C-alpha cells in the first residue's frame, strides 16, 4: 500500500513539466533493420542489447550509456561484427549524423557538476590546513561514494544524518585541538636512548645481537623476535616528532638498508612504517626524519636484506659471524614539536581579542603538576559582545566559504552566538558554537557553482581542490580578487604552476593515482605466502613510491603520455631493482631515483610496475580479463560493458592442471561474448608474463601439479612448484598480432592520441567532479590535438585541461 506521502509526490510529478526527453529514433530504424535487428531484437538480444525495447529516454543514464555505446561501436566499425555484411562508409556516417545530435543535446542538458560535497579527504585537508591541526577526520567519516574510480564526483557523494552528526563532532575536535590550552608554548623534549643500555633487550645481546666496544649494537638477519623496538624511545603524547638514528654498516662493503617503524604494545594496532634508510660502512652516520606519531608508540629499527641462510649465527655464535650487519649506536626522539603557537586556528578565532588566563584563587595552584589553566575573553568596558563577534565570524566565514561574505550572510550565525550567550554560555563557548555552525553549513560542506562559466572564487576552489586537495590559499584568493582569472587562462596557469610547485601537490599525486590507477587498493590483498614468498612490507612500500614517483617525474619533466605505457627509465631503489631482476644496474639504498633501463627491458611505464600488477590481481592468481579491464578503463579510457545478466564468471583454478586462459577460451567461444572480449582480453594476455606481485614468469606457479624448484628466497627454499607455461600472445581488437609483452606495448604507443584522450578525460573528471560525456567530446578532441603539437607532454596536458572550457564551466 503506498503511503499518502508518496502518492502526493507522484501527483506532484504529474503536475510538474515533463522532464522526460525521449528522442525520435525512427531515422535509425533503416540501419537497424539492415544490420542489427537480426541479433539484437527482443528474441535474441545478444550481448544484452534488445533494440526493440531499448528506451529512447536519454535522461535515463542506463539508456544513455547504451545509446552512446551503440554510437561508438558503429562508428568504430566494431558493429556489425566482421562476419556480417558491413555497411558502407556513407551509411555509417549517416547513422552517426542521425544519432549524434540527440545524444549531444541530451548530454548538454544533463551535464554540469552537481553540487559537490567535499569528500572526506578534502574535508580533512581543508580543516587541518585552516586550523593548523593534524587530525584524522577522514577516518571518522563514512566512506565516500564513487563514480567509476573517482571519489570526487558530485553526483556520487551523498550525505546522511549520521555524517552530519560526525561533522558536528569533527569541528569540535578541530577547535579543541587548535585552541591553546597553555599560556606558554609547550616545550618539546629530546630522548636519547640506545639498545646497549635498554634493559629489555640485554638477553639478546651476545646471542642474536652483537655489542661493539663503541657502544653500538649490531642487528643481523631480521627474525621477528627480538622485534628491534626500543622501549625507551617512547611517545607519551601524539604529535610531530623528529627521529634521529645513528649507526653504520658492519662487516659490509655496501650500504645496509633498514626500516624505521613505529611499534606499540597494543595488539592489533597499526604499526606504521616511517621510512627506509641505509647506512654506509665506516664512520657512524645519522639519519633524521620528521613524522607524526600517535601516543604510546616506540621507535623500531629493522634491517632488510641480510640473509644468514646457513644459520651461522646459531651454529658458530654471533661473535664469530662474518656476515654483514646493521650497527646502531643510539636513537634520539625529539618532540612533540610545536610548529606554531598559538595555532592558525586559534589566531583565526581570537586575533584582536584579549584571551586571558583566569587566575586561580590560590596563586600556588599554578605550580601544581595537575594545574590546567582556564581562559576567558576580556572585553573592554562598554563593548557589545555581538559587535566584537561580528568581524570574527565574518573572517571565519570567508575562509570557510572560500569567498568574501556579506554582512547579511553571517546574520544567522551572529544570532546563534547571541542565543548561546543568552543561555549563559561564555563568549568563547558562544563563539565556538557559531563557528561550528559555519563549518557544518552547506556553504562550507559543498562546492557551489553557478551554471555557465564559473565565477572567480568557484574557479579558485576548483583549481585548489584539484591540485592541492584543499581550499584556495591566501595567494590564490588574492590573485582571484585582483584579476578575473576566468577570462585570463594564462593567469590561471601561473597559479596552477605555483600550486604544482607547492608541498601540498603531493596530495594530488597520491589521491589522483589512488583513484585513477586504483592504488588505493594496494593493501586489499596479501599475496599468498607460499606462492609468492618474495613479497614483504618493504616491497609494498617501494611499489607505491615507485608509481607515485614515476608520475611525479612525468609531470616534473613534462614527458610524453606514451611514457604511461613505455619509458626508457624507471624509478628504482635496491628493493625494486632486486625484484625486477635488474641488479646489474647496481641501485643501492632505499631512496628511489631515476634509472635508465636496458634496451628491451619489460619495465618502464605503469603497466609493469609491481603496484599495478598487484592491484590488478587478487593475491593468488591473475585473470587476463581483470587485467584487460584495468588497462582498458584506466589507460585507454574505455569502460567495457559488464557481462550481460545471466553470465557467470570463470572460476579460477590454481591446482596447476589448466590455466585460466584455457578455461576462458572455452567459456567465451560464443560470438556474443567475443565481441567484447576481443577488446578486453588482449592487454590481459600480454600481461600474463607477470605474476600477482609483478615478477616475471615463464610458467605459472602452482600449489598442486608441477615441477619442483630449488630457488631460495630470503635464504629459504621455496615451496611452490612450476606448472603450466605462460601464453602471452594475442591479437588486439584492431587485428594486430603480438607475441610478447613488448610487442603489445609498442602497439599501444603507436596511438599516443588515444592515451592522451584517456588521460585528459581522467584529469577532467577528477578536477571537475563530474563524468565526461558525449557533448564534451569536441572540447576533449581539441585538447588532444593541441597536446599533440607539444608531443603530448603530461604537464602540458594538465595545463590544457586547466585552461579548457570544461574546467572553467560548471
Amino acid at each position, binding site marked *: 500500500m503506498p503511503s499518502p506521502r508518496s502518492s502526493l509526490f507522484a501527483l506532484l510529478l504529474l503536475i510538474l513539466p515533463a522532464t522526460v526527453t525521449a528522442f525520435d529514433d525512427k531515422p535509425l530504424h533503416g540501419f537497424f533493420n539492415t544490420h542489427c535487428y537480426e541479433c539484437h531484437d527482443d528474441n535474441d538480444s545478444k550481448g544484452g542489447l534488445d533494440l526493440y525495447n531499448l528506451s529512447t529516454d536519454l535522461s535515463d543514464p542506463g539508456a544513455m550509456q547504451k545509446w552512446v555505446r551503440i554510437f561508438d561501436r558503429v562508428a568504430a566499425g566494431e558493429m556489425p561484427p566482421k562476419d556480417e555484411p558491413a555497411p558502407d562508409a556513407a551509411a555509417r556516417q549517416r547513422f552517426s549524423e542521425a544519432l549524434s545530435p540527440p545524444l549531444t543535446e541530451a548530454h548538454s542538458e544533463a551535464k554540469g557538476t552537481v553540487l559537490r560535497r567535499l569528500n572526506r579527504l578534502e574535508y580533512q585537508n581543508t580543516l587541518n590546513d585552516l586550523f593548523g591541526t593534524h587530525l584524522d577526520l577522514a577516518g571518522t567519516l*563514512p566512506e565516500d561514494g564513487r563514480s567509476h574510480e573517482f571519489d570526487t564526483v558530485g553526483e556520487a557523494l551523498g550525505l546522511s544524518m549520521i555524517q552530519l552528526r560526525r561533522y558536528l563532532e569533527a569541528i569540535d575536535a578541530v577547535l579543541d585541538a587548535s585552541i591553546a590550552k597553555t599560556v606558554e608554548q609547550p616545550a618539546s623534549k629530546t630522548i636519547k636512548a640506545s639498545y646497549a643500555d635498554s634493559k629489555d633487550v640485554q638477553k639478546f645481546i651476545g646471542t642474536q645481537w652483537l655489542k661493539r666496544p663503541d657502544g653500538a649494537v649490531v642487528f643481523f638477519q631480521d627474525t621477528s623476535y627480538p622485534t628491534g623496538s626500543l622501549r625507551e624511545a617512547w611517545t607519551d603524547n601524539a604529535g610531530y616528532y623528529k627521529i634521529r638514528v645513528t649507526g653504520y654498516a658492519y662487516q659490509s662493503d655496501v650500504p645496509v638498508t633498514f626500516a624505521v617503524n613505529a611499534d606499540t604494545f597494543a595488539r*592489533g594496532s597499526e604499526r606504521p612504517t616511517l621510512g627506509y634508510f641505509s647506512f654506509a660502512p665506516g664512520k657512524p652516520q645519522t639519519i633524521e626524519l620528521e613524522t607524526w606519531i600517535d601516543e604510546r608508540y616506540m621507535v623500531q629499527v629493522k634491517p632488510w636484506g641480510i640473509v644468514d641462510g646457513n644459520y651461522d649465527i646459531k651454529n658458530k655464535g654471533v661473535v664469530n659471524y662474518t656476515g654483514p650487519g646493521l650497527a646502531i649506536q643510539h636513537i634520539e626522539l625529539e618532540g612533540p614539536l610545536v610548529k606554531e603557537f598559538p595555532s592558525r586556528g586559534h589566531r583565526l578565532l581570537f586575533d584582536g581579542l584579549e584571551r586571558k588566563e583566569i587566575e586561580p584563587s590560590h596563586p600556588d595552584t599554578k605550580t601544581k603538576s595537575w594545574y590546567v589553566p582556564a581562559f576567558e575573553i576580556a572585553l573592554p568596558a562598554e563593548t557589545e559582545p555581538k559587535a566584537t563577534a561580528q568581524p570574527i565570524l565574518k573572517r571565519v566565514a570567508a575562509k570557510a566559504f572560500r569567498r568574501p561574505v556579506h554582512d547579511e550572510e553571517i546574520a544567522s550565525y551572529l544570532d546563534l552566538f547571541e542565543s548561546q550567550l543568552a543561555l549563559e554560555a561564555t563568549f568563547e563557548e558562544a563563539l565556538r558554537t557559531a563557528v561550528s555552525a559555519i563549518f557544518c*553549513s552547506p556553504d562550507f560542506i559543498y562546492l557551489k557553482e553557478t551554471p555557465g562559466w564559473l565565477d572567480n572564487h568557484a574557479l579558485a576552489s576548483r583549481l585548489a581542490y584539484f591540485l592541492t586537495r584543499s581550499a584556495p590559499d591566501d595567494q590564490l584568493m588574492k590573485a582571484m580578487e585582483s584579476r578575473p582569472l576566468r577570462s585570463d587562462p594564462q593567469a590561471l596557469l601561473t597559479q596552477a604552476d605555483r600550486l604544482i610547485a607547492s608541498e601540498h601537490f603531493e596530495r594530488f599525486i597520491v589521491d589522483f593515482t589512488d583513484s585513477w590507477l586504483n592504488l588505493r587498493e594496494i593493501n586489499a590483498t596479501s599475496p599468498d605466502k607460499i606462492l609468492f614468498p618474495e613479497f614483504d612490507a618493504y616491497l609494498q612500500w617501494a611499489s607505491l613510491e615507485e608509481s607515485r614517483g614515476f608520475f611525479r617525474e612525468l609531470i616534473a619533466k613534462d614527458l610524453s603520455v606514451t611514457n604511461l605505457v613505455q619509458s626508457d627509465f624507471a624509478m628504482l631503489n635496491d628493493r625494486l631493482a632486486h625484484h625486477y631482476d635488474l641488479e646489474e644496474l647496481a641501485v643501492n639504498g632505499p631512496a628511489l631515483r631515476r634509472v635508465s633501463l636496458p634496451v628491451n627491458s619489460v619495465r618502464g611505464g605503469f603497466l609493469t610496475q609491481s603496484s599495478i600488477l598487484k592491484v590488478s590481481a587478487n593475491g593468488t592468481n591473475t585473470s587476463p580479463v581483470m587485467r584487460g579491464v584495468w588497462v582498458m578503463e584506466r589507460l585507454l579510457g574505455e569502460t567495457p560493458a559488464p557481462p550481460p545478466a545471466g553470465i557467470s564468471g570463470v572460476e579460477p583454478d590454481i591446482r596447476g592442471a589448466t590455466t585460466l586462459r584455457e578455461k576462458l577460451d572455452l567459456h567465451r567461444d560464443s560470438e556474443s561474448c567475443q565481441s567484447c572480449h576481443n577488446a578486453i582480453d588482449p592487454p590481459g594476455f600480454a600481461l600474463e608474463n607477470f605474476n600477482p606481485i609483478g615478477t616475471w614468469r615463464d610458467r605459472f606457479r602452482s600449489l598442486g601439479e608441477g615441477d619442483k624448484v630449488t630457488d631460495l628466497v630470503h635464504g629459504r627454499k621455496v615451496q611452490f612448484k612450476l606448472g603450466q607455461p605462460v601464453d602471452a600472445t594475442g591479437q588486439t581488437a584492431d587485428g594486430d598480432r603480438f607475441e610478447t609483452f613488448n610487442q603489445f606495448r609498442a602497439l599501444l604507443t603507436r596511438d599516443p592520441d588515444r592515451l592522451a584522450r584517456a588521460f585528459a578525460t581522467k584529469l577532467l573528471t577528477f578536477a571537475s567532479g563530474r563524468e565526461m560525456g558525449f557533448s564534451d567530446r569536441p572540447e576533449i578532441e581539441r585538447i588532444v590535438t593541441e597536446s599533440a603539437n607539444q608531443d603530448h607532454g603530461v604537464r602540458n596536458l594538465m595545463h590544457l585541461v586547466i585552461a579548457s572550457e570544461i574546467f572553467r564551466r560548471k
Partner: protein
Amino acid sequence: MHSPHIASHRSLNRRHFLRGTGAAILGLPFLDAMVPAFARPAAAAASDTNSSPKRFVAMCAGLGFHTPFLVPEKAGRDFELTPYLQKLSDHRDQLTVFSGLSHPEQQGNNGHASELTWLTSAKRPGLAGFRNTISVDQLIAEKVGIETRFPSLVLGTRSGSISWTSNGVELPAESRPSVLFKSLFVDGTEKEVEAELRQLKRGRSILDTVLGEAKRMESDLGHRDKEKLDEYLDSVRNLEVRLQQSEGWAVRPKPKIDAELPNDVADSNDSIAKQRLMYEMIALALQNDSTRTVTFRISGMNAVPSNITGVATDWHNLSHHGKDEEKISELQLIEQAEFEALSEFLSRLQGIEENGRSLLDHTAVLYGSNLGNASAHDWRNLPLLLAGGGYRHGQHLAHDENDNTHFANLLVAQAQRMGVEIDQFGSSTKVGIDGLESA
C-alpha cells in the same frame, strides 16, 4: 484470531508529542504514558504472546561461504546436515535454509559490489547511473524505530555497513562493542547527563541555523543541485528529530542489566571473537528492547584470522581458493567457527524467555552473504538462512539454481512481518517465499 498489534495505540507518539511542546518538554516530569509500551524488561510485561514486539536482525558476511559445505543436497524437511549445518544442528527446527535465491542484475563495478545491495536489491551496483535505495532495515526502522531508544542499530566488524538511507547513502557501522554498550546501558552521572543535554540542545541550535542557510542557498540552485541539497536538508531534519528524541531519552534511565562493560577485542585480526562479542551486544539490545532492528556486516580480512587452529593463510586469499583443496579446508575452519558463533547467538536468543516464548521466536534472524561463490565473485545462488521469528522452520527451500528466485521476495515479507505496509520492495515480484509459513 489474534488481536492486532496494539503497541502504537497504547503509547503516545513521542515525535508528535515533542513537536507539539518543543523544548518545554525538558522541564516536565516524564509522563508514564510516554514510555513505549514495551520498553520495559520483558519479564515485567503481561504474559500475552501478542504483546511482545517483533524484531528483525540481518547479518551479511562479505567474503561469502563455501556453499557446498552449507547447502544440503536434499530439499524439504528431510535435508541432510552439511558441515556448516552440523554446527547449527541444535537449531535445525528453528531455521530454514534457502538455495537458489539472489537479486537480479548484480553485475557491478567490482566483484564485491553486490554487498552494497544485499538489503536493498538495487540493480547494477556501482555502474553508471547507479543510485542505491533504502535498505529494508531502515524501512522497518522508519516504521517501528520511534518505539525504542535506538530506531535501529547499524553494526559491523569494521566501519562499513549494509544499511542505506532513503537517499541511497550508506550508514556507517558501529564496530566497538564497548561504545555500543555504553550508549545502550550505561547512564552518565548527573553532570554528564546535563552536559549531554547541553550538547544536544547546542547541536539543535546549530542545525536550526544551518537549515536556514540551506534554504537560502536552495533558492538560487538549479534542479539537479536542489536534488543534491535535499540530501542535506533531509539529513538536518532527521538529525534534529533524532537529537530531540535523544534529549527525551537522555533524561530517562537506561535499562539496568546484569552485564559488565565489555572490553573491545584488542586483536583486530580476531574476527571470531569480534563476532561473538557483537552477538552478545545484539542479544542484550534486543532483550532490553533498546532497538527492534539490527544489521551486522561481517567483513572478511586481508589477514590471517587469529585463534583458529589450523588457519595460517590470509582470509581474503583463501576465499579466492581457486579450487585448491588445502585452501578450501583452511577456509572451512574459518567458516565453521563463524557458524559456531552464530549457533551460540541463536542459543542465547532461544534461552531468553519473553511472554511465554523465546526471544528467538520474536526475532527473525537473516544470515548469509552477497556472494554465492566468492572465488569467482558470483552473486547468484546466495547462501541464506532465516532463523527464528515464529516461522515453521526445519526445512531447506530449494529454488532453481539456473533461474534464481528474487531474494527481495523474502525481504518484503520480513518488512511486512515487522508491520511495514508494503507489498513490494526493490526487485521483489511477490510477497514471501513459498513454503515459508508462520507457525
